[in-house]
């Protein structure tokens, strides 16, 4: 890794400012947009929804979203995790969010991790063995796979494995009222996780693979790979320590740029598999016009994504020494 990466430069400051601005924009939007709704807020949103409000609930809502609530007050509430109350679910929004979040993290985290590792290794090995027929076929297959959006893969997998073969459950993260014994519980979770996980991995893997392969093919031509060969180093070391290490840089870069759009896919997949993560929560809230939930989910997700972006920026400099020292 790069030493002295923690030294901040002027570039860093600009980065921090950018993210702060973005975060502020998101927060402000989540605050102000509801106030732009035409007519009476409450009727406009809840008039046609599946939630029926009692008179006092209506009054409470009006008060809650009243124009007199300032932005400052709003911020304070956010920080204190007082995120309002969901009328559709009859629970505080924060409770809903935090019970759904772990599942999403589990799903997305493992999907990204697996697809990155497999995609990277496969890409490196494919590039090393370039132009053999198997490799060409693999590249072709991956290109086609990349063209299939998560919605489609999700549905197809659901059809084949959940409905036809009945190998996996069609919904949920764990069997309700199931075993609480640890090992059995873990297995149960994994069992439920498999389908959505596979869907996402299938969606993320081709991109990683192709990108790594392309990046690697350019790296292989480089002089320093020749130098490494001349040094008589073992082939595995040349491939990974010398070549793949440099191929990593564009891969990580592109990852950051795709992140925002990967979220969309994750939302959809959760819904398809009825996986109780943030995505399903959002979907249900949208269906029920449950505005407090929608607001909070959007805001928190955005902030989380921003945080990840920010972390990625620092990851770049760990990986590419040239960036750290560029002005």
């Amino acid at each position, binding site marked *: 890794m790069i030493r002295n990466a923690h030294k901040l430069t002027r570039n860093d400051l600009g980065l921090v400012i950018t993210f702060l601005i973005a975060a502020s924009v998101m927060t402000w939007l989540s605050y102000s947009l509801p106030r732009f709704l035409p007519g009476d807020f409450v009727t406009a949103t809840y008039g046609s929804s599946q939630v029926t409000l009692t008179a006092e609930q209506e009054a409470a809502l009006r008060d809650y979203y009243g124009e007199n609530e300032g932005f400052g007050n709003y911020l304070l509430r956010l920080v204190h995790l007082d995120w309002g109350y969901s009328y559709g679910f009859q629970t505080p929004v924060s409770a809903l969010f935090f019970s759904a979040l772990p599942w999403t993290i589990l799903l997305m985290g493992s999907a990204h991790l697996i697809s990155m590792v497999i995609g990277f290794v496969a890409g490196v090995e494919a590039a090393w063995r370039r132009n053999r027929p198997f490799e060409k076929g693999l590249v072709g297959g991956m290109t086609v796979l990349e063209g*299939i959006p998560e*919605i489609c893969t999700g*549905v*197809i997998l659901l*059809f084949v494995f959940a409905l036809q073969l009945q190998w996996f459950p069609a919904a949920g993260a764990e069997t309700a009222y199931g075993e609480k014994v640890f090992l059995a519980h873990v297995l149960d979770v994994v069992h439920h996780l498999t389908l959505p996980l596979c869907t996402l991995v299938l969606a993320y893997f081709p991109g990683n693979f192709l990108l790594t392969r392309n990046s690697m093919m350019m790296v292989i031509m480089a002089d320093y790979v020749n130098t490494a060969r001349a040094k008589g180093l073992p082939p595995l070391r040349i491939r990974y320590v010398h070549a793949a290490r440099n191929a990593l840089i564009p891969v990580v870069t592109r990852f950051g740029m795709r992140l925002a*759009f990967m979220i969309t896919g994750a939302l959809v997949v959760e*819904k398809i598999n009825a996986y109780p993560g943030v995505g399903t929560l959002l979907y249900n809230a*949208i269906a029920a016009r449950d505005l407090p939930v929608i607001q909070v989910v959007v805001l928190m*997700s955005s902030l989380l994504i*921003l945080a990840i972006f920010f972390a990625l920026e620092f990851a770049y400099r760990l990986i590419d020494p040239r960036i750290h020292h560029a002005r």
Partner: protein
Amino acid sequence: MHVNFHATLRRDPWFLSGVTLSALFLILALLGPFLAPFSPWNMDFIPLSPPSATHLLGVNDGGQDIFSELLYAIRNTFVFGVISASTALFLGVLLGAVAGWFGGVVDLILMRLADVLLAIPAIMILILVAALFRPSPVFLALILSGLMWPTISKTIRAQTLNLKQSLHVRAARQMGGGSGYIIAKHLIPEMFPLYLIGFAAKARMAMFMEASLAFLGLLDPSRKSLGMMISYALQFYYMDIWWHWLFPPIICLSLMIMMVTFLAISLEKVLDPRLKESMPGRRL
């Protein structure tokens, strides 16, 4: 930029597939309303009936002919993608070229703006706006393009900076060519291949977004969309609707996304060496 990529492109199987599919879907999109046997909103038919001679793909739960729905849905997704991508392209090229050409404060402001917009997750804004306001799809397409132009503008800006050093641009400047003239006549036509790549990539994202938004129920329910069809069909997963109701929109959506993916990949493959030299560091 390089002129001779036509020959290589024409031979590339991905490019050909992409173009063929695009042509196919373009025709379907244009002729959709004429090819549809019934109006997709016509709810007179027996709900959930299987495919037959009159109803090629059967009837959905609301009594509407699925085949007609499909044709209109293809059209809507296609149009959404085109509008969004074109607007994003227009904005990206304009702002990128201006930033690259004028440099200085203009460049700084525009690039900072681009950075902020890049950081904001597009889907969240779209969800928020769609959930609150139920705007027309065109409006959403435009908002999406407002969030997609930054990546294009960065690419264009990098290439503009590169071109600024080229001989014919410097000669034009020396001869007294004004900024507008140079940008219009010298820079913009030069970067044509980049536009194709940008358009394909953004169209892909836009169509995917449209399908996802429709799937999540954020778009107008009476507007036919592939995502929406999938979403409705899925509700009846326990019934025998998979082959005629669920798979057709899935296949169509996959093919549409594939066609732009293939175009983008083949274009990038052919043009990449030329682009490589102009990309400094990591941010495109």
